[in-house]
């Protein structure tokens, strides 16, 4: 997980609010980068030179010994301000020197001065860091039995109050651990433990800023839904299809994934229809049809003039009051007219793709070149056995020249819940990370994109059976499946790769995006993790 530079450090809400002289360290003021800082500790936010590690560890041990002694010495921790605990060795130095040389007896917090003020012990906000390089090491909490007042100078200071302070820089790690532990508990049907854990996850997630917190919130919602609803089939709030489409539209705008999908698929289609005079595209998930204006334009500038373009779009069943498919067709027709492409549209409303039969498409094989396109649609069919085979057989039956397919690159369809959970956690963490880095976006887009992805998360985690539609599979799995039905892969050319690279390099926050070519298919990923894959197929032996 990537840490945001701008994240400030908030103490755990459970702790007594520290105030006064302790400055909360903030990640914003990083020290000058010293390249021999230990990397693992740096992830947690502490800068320790690798060469000094042994020393720092020793000093931390000393500190712990002193602090755990329940004597006045520990309360002499003073009113000097400690800055920058991420510079661990200096910080520990100052702590130790304060402890060894209490400055003056004035600092005895049990003594209440004439103004009713007493010293505020300075340790409340500074927990110890982990020693050593082990990120997985158990986090240490500091319990301070303190005789002294804490934030409020006017309070009578004789009551000792135990304080548990947890460093939220490590809550990120603890959050992941808690999520996985909760999933494990569910896997083992230990719902009581899972119940307890999911509550703590919720609290931790709420206090964690940034992408990790958002992801964790959605995962904890999914887990909670899984624990608390006896009927596992109702694993997702049902909203109308137009809301889904609106969410996907926001997702389209706020990040490059869908654009990448559309442009690379379009390029594959263009290369397959170079000589066709009539092109018929069947879109298995029309949504708002954002993919097709660009394809029509590319066809229009083809040397030799544009072919006639026919689009059959499949969408969800229409309500009586609105026929959004027809409206969409009308909008696309207007666009086609503006750029001078002959256009024909047909909308097919179907509850599920497996309801479609080859005759419904009314193909004209003698005169037109057929293309089948599916963006994030095929994985939904894996919820019922036989659906995907039926659909792929239907696709084969219409004899397309090329089938373009875009799917998420992850295995969220494993049989074992825990495996699915872990895989999804990593996948969506990367995805949310990439959203986080896009700056300058209208926030509504990003928020709605997060809702869009959150719904997927809840579906992966909480739903079962036919309700679980987000059954993503990896490219390798799809290759096997497509091969067994009778499709051969068509490699995507360098044009698609170049366009994708250019798209990403101009995208705001584009440093983390990566385009990879994988055996003829293009994968778009964030940092090292591939997230979506575009592939193209043709009939075997064609």
């Amino acid at each position, binding site marked *: 997980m990537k840490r945001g530079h701008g994240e400030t450090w908030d103490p755990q809400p459970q702790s007594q609010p520290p105030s006064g002289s302790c400055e909360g360290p903030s990640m914003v003021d990083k020290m000058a980068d010293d390249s021999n800082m230990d990397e693992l500790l740096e992830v947690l936010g502490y800068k320790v030179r690798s060469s000094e590690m042994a020393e720092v560890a020793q000093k931390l041990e000393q500190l712990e010994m002193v602090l755990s002694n329940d004597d006045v010495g520990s309360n002499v921790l003073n009113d000097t301000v400690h800055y920058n605990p991420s510079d661990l060795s200096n910080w520990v130095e100052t702590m130790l020197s304060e402890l060894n040389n209490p400055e003056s007896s004035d600092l005895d917090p049990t003594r209440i001065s004439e103004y009713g003020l007493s010293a505020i012990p300075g340790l409340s906000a500074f927990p110890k860091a982990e020693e050593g390089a082990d990120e997985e090491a158990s986090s240490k909490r500091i319990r301070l039995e303190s005789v002294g007042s804490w934030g409020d100078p006017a309070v009578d200071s004789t009551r000792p109050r135990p304080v548990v302070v947890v460093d939220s820089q490590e809550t990120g790690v603890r959050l992941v651990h808690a999520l996985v532990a909760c999933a494990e508990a569910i896997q083992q049907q230990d719902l009581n433990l899972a119940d307890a854990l999911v509550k703590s996850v919720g609290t931790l997630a709420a206090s964690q800023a940034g992408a990790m917190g958002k992801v964790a919130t959605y995962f904890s919602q999914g887990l909670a839904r899984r624990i608390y609803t006896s009927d596992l089939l109702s694993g997702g709030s049902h909203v109308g299809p137009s809301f889904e489409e609106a969410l996907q539209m926001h997702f389209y705008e706020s990040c490059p994934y869908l654009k990448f999908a559309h442009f690379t698929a379009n390029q594959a289609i263009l290369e397959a229809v170079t000589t066709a005079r009539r092109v018929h595209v069947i879109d298995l998930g029309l949504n708002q049809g954002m993919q097709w204006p660009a394809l029509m334009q590319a066809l229009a500038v083809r040397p030799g003039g544009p072919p006639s373009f026919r689009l059959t779009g499949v969408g969800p069943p229409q309500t009586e009051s609105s026929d959004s498919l027809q409206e969409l067709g009308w909008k696309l027709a207007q*666009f086609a007219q503006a750029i001078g492409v002959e256009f024909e549209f047909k909308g097919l409303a179907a509850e599920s793709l497996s309801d479609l039969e080859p005759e419904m498409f009314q193909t004209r094989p003698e005169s037109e070149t057929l293309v089948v396109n599916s963006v994030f649609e095929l994985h939904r069919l894996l919820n019922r056995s036989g659906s995907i085979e039926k659909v792929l057989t239907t696709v084969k039956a219409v004899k397309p020249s090329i089938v373009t397919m875009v799917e998420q690159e992850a295995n969220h369809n494993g049989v074992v819940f825990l495996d699915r959970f872990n895989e999804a956690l990593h996948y969506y963490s990367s995805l949310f990370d990439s959203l986080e880095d896009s700056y300058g976006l209208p926030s509504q887009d990003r928020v709605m994109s997060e809702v869009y992805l959150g719904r997927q998360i809840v579906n992966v985690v909480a739903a079962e059976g036919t309700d679980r539609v987000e059954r993503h599979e990896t490219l390798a799995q799809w290759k096997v499946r497509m091969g067994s039905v009778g499709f051969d892969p068509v490699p995507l050319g360098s044009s698609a790769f170049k366009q994708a690279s250019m798209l990403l390099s101009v995208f705001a926050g584009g440093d983390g995006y990566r385009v990879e070519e994988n055996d003829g298919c293009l994968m778009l990923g964030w940092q090292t993790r591939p997230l979506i894959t575009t592939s193209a197929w043709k009939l075997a032996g064609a």
Partner: protein
Amino acid sequence: MSSKRTRMVEKSNNKRQRVDLVSEFSINDHHDVLVEILRRLDGPSLCSAACVCRLWSAVARNDSIWEELCFRQVSPRPSLSIRSIVSALGGYRRLYFLCIRPVLERLPKIIWSRDQLQLSLSLYCVHYYERLYVGAWLGDAPPSSLMFLRKPVNVV
């Protein structure tokens, strides 16, 4: 405005006739020449030129100037069929501001081949389609997939 100066000339038949002296040449009289000159400018200079006066601002809206600017670095030169499409989508000036200039700013050394041009045109299409057809449906804010490219510049 040109200033014409004339003088009286003695003609052979003793009639006086006014003859124009070589009038001062003013570029503002010759819009086509002005267009030819502006076509050779680069982006920032062209924008400065468009701020000179109202006449120049109007002349600078001539789309062929912006077409030249958009495609100057593209090789091979795109076919003429693009012209009608780009005009339908809003013209070269808008294409330049929305799609070409941000790309040039981010990637100054980019080699403009057919693929890069195709991508810019695709983005332009998306923008046009969104603006006209998707905006009302989504509600208040007009969507723009190109927000990631654009800085807030008022492009009319």
